[in-house]
Structure formats: structure tokens, C-alpha cells
């Protein structure tokens, strides 16, 4: 995309964004877009770019709409006519929200309609990857725990085994000693 450069001093580049409901018929939609474009062009605007975002879910309900379509225009326009345009866009039928922004110097026009979709796909794959990693980590933890438990059980069992015979031996030897040392014993 070419970088924005203002040609003359009395003309600036402005960004127009319009949000309209997604449940409009095709005819209504085309008339609305035409209305907006003619409205700006009547004031001496020259179109630089047009970006149709298509249907997108809204973060909150606006006038009973959960979904809306976005259009982003870039126009070369005389700054004195912005206020008038703002007013007339507010009155335009079927426009839920509109915004006029003056992009800063050196702003590059990027089409967000395509990049958003790629981002969505990438995000899905990333989420999948994270999920898999988490599952793998959990599985490893469980396996480790099971191993540790088995080891512990084995250790305890072996200790018990080792201890018992020793104690038995001691007891037996003690008893034997007693028997031997017993004077009253006669065989």
C-alpha cells in the first residue's frame, strides 16, 4: 500500500467508517453505500480507498442488532466540510454508527478485512496448540505421580520386608539366650 502524502495544504485525508445492520436487503445496502459515497463526494471528496469488512459480530447490542457490516473509506477532503458531513451522516438512515478519523502523518492504509480473517484462523490454531500442550503437560504430571506412587509403594513394601525378618531374628536370638542362660532348665 502506498504511504499517504497530502498533495496540497487545503486538502487532507480522512478516514470514514460506517456501521450498518447486517440484515438489510441487497437493495437497501447498495443504496445506503451509494448515499454515503455521494454525500462525501458532493462536498468535494476524492476516494482513495474503500474497504468492505463484511459481516461481523458486535461486542454489544446496538439498536437491536447483534451483527453489523463495516465499511471503511479513505477520502481526500477539505477540512472545513467535515462538521457538515458528520451531521449529515448522523441523520442518514440505516447507519448505526459512523466515525471520522484523521490518520496521522505517514499512516499506511492497510486493509483489515483480510488480515482479520487470517488472524482468526491463526488464533484458532494457536489455541489448539496451547490446548494440546496443556493436555500433554497434565498427562505427564499424572504419569509422574503414578510412577512416584508405585515407587513409594515398592519402597515401603521392601522396607517392611527387610525389617520384619531382622526383628524376628533378634527375638529368636534373645529367646534362645534366655533359654540357654536359664539355670532351671533340665533336659
Amino acid at each position, binding site marked *: 500500500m502506498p504511504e499517504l502524502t497530502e498533495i496540497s495544504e487545503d486538502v487532507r485525508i480522512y478516514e470514514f467508517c460506517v456501521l450498518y445492520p447486517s440484515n438489510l436487503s441487497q437493495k437497501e445496502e447498495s443504496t445506503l453505500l451509494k448515499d454515503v459515497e455521494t454525500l462525501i463526494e458532493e462536498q468535494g471528496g476524492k476516494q482513495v480507498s474503500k474497504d468492505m469488512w463484511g459481516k*461481523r459480530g458486535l461486542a454489544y447490542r446496538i439498536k437491536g442488532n447483534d451483527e453489523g457490516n463495516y465499511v*471503511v473509506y479513505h477520502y481526500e477532503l477539505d477540512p472545513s466540510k467535515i462538521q457538515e458531513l458528520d451531521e449529515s451522516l448522523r441523520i442518514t438512515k440505516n447507519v448505526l454508527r459512523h466515525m471520522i*478519523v484523521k490518520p496521522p502523518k505517514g499512516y499506511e492504509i492497510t486493509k*483489515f478485512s483480510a488480515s482479520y480473517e487470517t*488472524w482468526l484462523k491463526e488464533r484458532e490454531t494457536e489455541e489448539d496448540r496451547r490446548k494440546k500442550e496443556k493436555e500433554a503437560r497434565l498427562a505427564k504430571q499424572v504419569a509422574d505421580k503414578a510412577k512416584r506412587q508405585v515407587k513409594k509403594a515398592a519402597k515401603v513394601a521392601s522396607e517392611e520386608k527387610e525389617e520384619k525378618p531382622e526383628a524376628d531374628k533378634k527375638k529368636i536370638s534373645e529367646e534362645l539366650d534366655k533359654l540357654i542362660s536359664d539355670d532351671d532348665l533340665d533336659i
Partner: protein
Amino acid sequence: MSKKGNRRTDPKDKKCPYCEKNIKYIDWKDYPAMKPFIDYFGNIMKRYYTGVCLKHQKMLKNSVERARFMGMMAYRK
């Protein structure tokens, strides 16, 4: 050095993620660029936790508010 400076080193260690990428302007239409600095409830996260520099935090605030107005982001989840 005071004890306090030694203990709390993390906010100073963080570097502005926008500065590292050399971003000059945060576009309100660029949702993926703003998303990491928004919490679950839709609030802009504090600079203390994200490490964003003041210049970019102001820019971020501006663009998030624009995105909220246009229905791209939630005011409150």
C-alpha cells in the same frame, strides 16, 4: 540502594511491546494489536502489568475507545 528497589524489579524489566515492534500509531481497526492489553472484562490493563510506555498507553486508550464506540470491543463483559 534501598531495599524497595531491589525487591520490585519486574516493572522496570518489562519493555514496551509496541516500542519493540517500532509501532508509531495504534490503529483502532487493528483488533489483534490491542487484544493483548485488554483483560477478560474488557478493561484496558494497567501499564504496571503490561509494561507499555506512557506514549503508547495513551495511543492505546484512544484506539480502544474508538473501537468500543464502533461496537468492535465491549465496554463491559
